[in-house]
């Protein structure tokens, strides 16, 4: 307990006596946040592609992700201009936007997959039903033809004639 208190005291003193160290840590913050936001946008994009391949409508997701890219761009510009507070704020906002898109992309993908599954089941059932119906109609048609032929045969009459 005493050891950790001493360590904390030394750390505080080092920050006071070495301002360069403390400023270096504050600069590293926004840079890391920007990298995290970039990574989240990449992850969200991968989710959007999966949702699109599953057959989902991703137009709104793409719009939202472009919004996240715009916010990330603002973060980078602020960072280049030395405005690290704004850079951090924008980077966090971009990451939040990207994560929201990633969540939404999962929902769109699952819904699209479910719809595709239902459609496949419907197609299979329809095909089977059509085959059964065709078989029945085909068989009944053959029977009707056979009956008709029989009726025609029964109607035949012997015609009396003369032989030479």
């Amino acid at each position, binding site marked *: 307990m005493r050891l950790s208190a001493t360590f904390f005291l030394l750390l505080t003193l080092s920050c006071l006596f070495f301002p360069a160290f403390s400023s270096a840590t504050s600069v590293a913050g926004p840079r890391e946040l920007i990298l995290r936001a970039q990574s989240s946008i990449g992850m969200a994009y991968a989710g959007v592609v999966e949702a699109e391949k599953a057959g989902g409508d991703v137009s709104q997701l793409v719009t939202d992700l472009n919004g996240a890219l715009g916010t*990330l761009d603002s973060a980078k510009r602020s960072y280049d201009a030395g405005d690290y507070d704004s850079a951090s704020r924008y980077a966090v906002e971009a990451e939040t936007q990207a994560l929201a898109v990633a969540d939404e992309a999962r929902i769109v993908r699952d819904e699209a997959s479910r719809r595709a599954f239902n459609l496949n089941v419907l197609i299979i059932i329809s095909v089977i039903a059509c085959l059964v119906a065709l078989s029945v109609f085909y068989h009944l048609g*053959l*029977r009707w033809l056979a009956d008709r032929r029989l009726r025609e045969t029964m109607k035949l009459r012997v015609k009396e004639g003369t032989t030479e």
Partner: protein
Amino acid sequence: MRMDEETTVLVAVGVASILVLATVVYITLQPKPAKEFMEMYVLDSNHGTVDYVRDLEVNEVVRSYVGVRNYMNSAQYMAIYVKISNNTVSAEPCPLPPLVTYERILPKGATWEFPLDIVLTRAEIQGGYTVVKELRVNNMTLRGLGLLAEGGKGYRVVFELWLYDPTSESFKFTGSWGKVWTQFWFNLMVPK
């Protein structure tokens, strides 16, 4: 109701014929997979391909329009790298770092076009070379540059299209879409 042998054969053949016919029709009606590619173009200030600036002066605004169209089968996360090089560099991609980068997610079949204003704001002559020290791209000033060209001739603005690869989590210049880049040339006139 019992089917005789002839009827059974007829039913089986009929069903098989329908199945084969349905399969053939289904395959025939399926659209052929289109070749995937990306398209990029640079237009002049009049939205044409005739009036590209050839001879440029310091502080003269070069307006061009950069467009990208997505012919891939899914939305693409792309980056357009804008670089300024000279006629001594011919590698693909251009080994110089990008001056500016534009990133966007482009939906399948969509086109994205944006105006690009380039102004060379400071240039010097050193020996036989013109050196661009500062320039502005769409209101973003870039300082501390050292873009050389002998006699100010043969500068080129290079536009490279890089696509994001989710597997490697990085942008790639080449892939199934080929290599997409374009450029325009200009000479820089600096008064002595």
